[in-house]
């Protein structure tokens, strides 16, 4: 191998390591702190290896008020958002990818416009509407606003992936005996799975991380981030680390589960 190529490879490797460290070190430190006892956190110098693991901090955090409920609410809202966003967004993405219709460009522009509005601006009038309709302070309220926020990415990601599956494949399926829905389910959907998984991931992450809307629209049915955020400022250091870990872990698990759909599924890249 020639010199420049080797240098290039080395640089790529180094960049990969750097990015991994950038993402991984904070995760490691948070995990370490959350699994240390309160006293060992204040020790100096702080040990960087888990010399004295303890579940004390974590269990205190998990037993404190609102955490379990918030966790369950967050999961409900997150998964609900994924389902709703896919239910509405996948057909919309398909339509954008396949059909020419009046107002298509305007539609795509307005999709993005939703994200241009600050969440607070959306939440306050919505709180009013939800109060009137009795949706206020329910997980459904949060689910709805998160779905609205997740839809643009869902539509755009799935549209991009549907464009990649040639129309002729669908036509072939229909020639060989499939109805339009069958052609979609048997030919298009399996190939669009990675894109749908990515869209699901985005929707879940967005919902899991979103604080502002969830805080405005709920009082008692707080999601975990909303719960942690409101109590964070009055909490001891250890509690914050535990909260951090509790927030990160489910997200990491969700990504790990969806990741296998993201990888190409048939041994080689799709063509």
């Amino acid at each position, binding site marked *: 191998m020639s010199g420049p190529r080797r240098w290039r490879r080395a640089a790529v490797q180094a960049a990969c390591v750097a990015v991994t460290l950038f993402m991984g070190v904070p995760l490691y430190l948070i995990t370490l702190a959350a699994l240390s006892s309160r006293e060992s956190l204040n020790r100096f110098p702080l040990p960087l290896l888990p010399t004295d693991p303890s579940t004390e901090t974590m269990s205190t955090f998990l037993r404190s008020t609102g955490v379990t409920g918030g966790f369950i609410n967050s999961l409900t809202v997150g998964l609900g958002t994924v389902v709703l966003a896919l239910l509405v967004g996948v057909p919309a993405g398909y339509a954008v990818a396949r059909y020419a219709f009046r107002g298509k460009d305007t539609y795509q522009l307005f999709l993005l416009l939703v994200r241009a509005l600050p969440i607070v601006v959306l939440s306050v009038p919505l709180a009013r509407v939800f109060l009137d309709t009795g949706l206020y302070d329910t997980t459904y309220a949060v689910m709805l606003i998160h779905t609205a926020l997740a839809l643009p990415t869902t539509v755009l990601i799935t549209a991009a992936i549907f464009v990649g599956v*040639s129309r*002729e*494949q669908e*036509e*072939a*399926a*229909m*020639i*060989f*005996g*499939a*109805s339009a829905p*069958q052609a979609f389910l048997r*030919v298009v959907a*399996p*190939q669009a799975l990675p894109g749908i998984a990515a869209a699901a991931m985005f929707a879940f992450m967005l919902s899991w991380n979103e604080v502002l809307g969830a805080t405005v629209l709920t009082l008692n049915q707080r999601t975990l981030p909303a719960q942690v955020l409101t109590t964070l400022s009055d909490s001891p250091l250890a509690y914050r680390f535990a909260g951090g870990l509790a927030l990160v872990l489910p997200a990491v698990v969700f990504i790990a589960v969806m990741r296998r759909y993201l990888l190409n*599924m*048939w*041994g*080689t*890249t*799709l*063509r």
Partner: protein
Amino acid sequence: MSTVVMENLIKTYSGGDKRATDDVSLEVADGEFLVLVGPSGCGKTTLLRMVAGLETPDSGTVSIDGRDVTDLPARERGLSMVFQSYAIFPHMRVRQNIGFGLTMRKVPKDEVDRRVKRAAELLQLSEYLDRYPAQLSGGQRQRVAVARAIVVDAAVLLMDEPLSNLDALLRLQFRAELKRIVSQLGTTTLYVTHDQAEAMSLGDRVAVMREGKVAQLGAPLEVYDRPADQFVGGFLGSPPMNFLTARLRDGALAIGDASLPAPDHLSTWDAGDVVVGVRAENIQVSSDAQPGWVPARVEVVEPTGAALLLTVRLADEQLKVQAPATFPASPDQAVHLRAEPSALRFYDPSTGLALTTR
């Protein structure tokens, strides 16, 4: 076995101002291999897609075996198709790809296996049944697409430029193979191509299309030998037919300074000029002057191996002439040309239509 009848098919795409097919009526006989050929945008693919049920005509009907299928969805028309892009499913193994049509029609599994195996043998795909399409070469993918189309035993087989994505050598090989397979099956076939050589070599009959209409329909050699208009003559054949403008005077055709006796059937033609059409291989060439031969000058010499293709200048016209491979020719050389009167075709210079005795 089946016939396909297209009647008065008109289709205009939304946003297009011209008709993609303009009142086309065609009939594919039982077991016939009919080729639609023409330049891009001539409406041949649109016509095929209307037969397939992938496109709805504005007016006109499509009947298969006497049954009007114009309003039926593709899957109920009892046909099968090979697509230009192959359109095989990348997420299925070759086995499932070939068996797709049978599986969709709920054929019992052991019968699917049996028929897939037979089709794979016919197309030499037996070793690849458990591979994914991405692990195949372009030629093999094309075979999968053909196998998938023939395994369903449909009454009508449609093919949309199936060879156009293959490289030249492979295309030539597979063309012959395709002809053998289809004639063995005896399926009624409608085949679309823009490649005139493919059309000539495959079709029982050839329909040359231009601007949404059928310019000429006939057996390949008939269409090649007697083009109904200048467009067909210029489209079919490599090189295309030569066209020269000649002045008709006193029973003789004058091309520049040269003069040829005019055939009898032109005696009623009094419009002055006619266009003479002649194929390159029907022109004889000699380096010596002979009585009745027309002098010309060589401009370009292109050896093709089997023959020598000469571009010569005759008066103000350029001609392609096919000479024997051994013919001694060099640029700027004077040569003499002659053509059998029976090999000459005559066209109306204003309409481009053939002037015939009929």
